[in-house]
């Protein structure tokens, strides 16, 4: 039993073990709620809510009325749970702390300034979310959840994601690639 707890509290599990748990979570989502584990959609729902409060005319279009409804959806609740889950994961391994700029590999490439990290994270997140909006999902909602239903869209998306991800990493890392 103590070995189990020790393994459980490890900071990093084997990715295979963590992957098995994600797979089970994905099955449960379909079984219990008839839904897919989408993360990026929640941001669009939330953006729709905020947008409707600020500029209702602009947000009164087909996308926010029908495709991504401006309301608290299943995905938004999933997103809330994801934050709690990540928090609990860090607590269980005793590594939880507030950081504004923590990754040493990032600092080695882009420099130690915090504003750079935040600025590029913000810009990158806009690009990422825009791409997810066009494709109809992100890594979890389309690649994993679509892939497990053998949706062709998922595998096209994974191909595109890796092609441009590798290219971007090549450009960013250049000789250090």
């Amino acid at each position: 039993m103590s070995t189990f707890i020790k393994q459980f509290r490890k900071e990093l599990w084997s990715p295979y073990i963590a992957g098995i748990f994600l797979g089970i979570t994905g099955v449960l989502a379909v079984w219990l709620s008839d839904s897919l584990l989408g993360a990026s959609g929640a941001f669009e729902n939330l953006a729709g809510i905020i947008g409707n409060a600020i500029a209702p005319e602009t947000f009164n279009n087909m996308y926010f009325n029908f495709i991504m409804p401006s309301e608290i959806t299943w995905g938004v609740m999933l997103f809330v749970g994801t934050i709690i889950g990540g928090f609990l994961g860090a607590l269980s391994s005793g590594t939880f702390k507030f950081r504004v700029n923590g990754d040493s590999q990032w600092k080695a490439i882009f420099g130690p300034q915090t504003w750079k990290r935040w600025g590029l994270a913000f810009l990158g997140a806009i690009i990422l979310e825009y791409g997810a909006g066009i494709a109809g999902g992100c890594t979890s909602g389309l690649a994993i959840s679509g892939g497990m239903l053998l949706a062709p869209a998922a595998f096209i998306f994974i191909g595109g994601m890796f092609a441009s991800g590798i290219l971007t990493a090549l450009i960013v890392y250049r000789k250090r690639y």
Partner: protein
Amino acid sequence: MTTNMIIAVVLGIMFGFTLNKGGLTRYNKIVNVFRFTDLTVLKYMLTALVVAMIGLYGLRSLGLITFPNVPATYIAGNLIGGLIFGIGMALTGY
């Protein structure tokens, strides 16, 4: 709060927990898969895929579940979206 919403939060907690324990919340793990120096993301993603595929197709053949709407396939959109997504993913590491 419907039961469905509570299920969503619980599943979200499981999802976030495995992401954290798998190391997928770190910049270096995400970007290093594109440099082929650390394949954690692929191991995690593909293990989840295989487990979920077996689970879903097994349960469906037992008649216990029906599949939800499968994400729509529109080749240009999926591909262009994926290409844009990859840039953001490699830059931020999220």
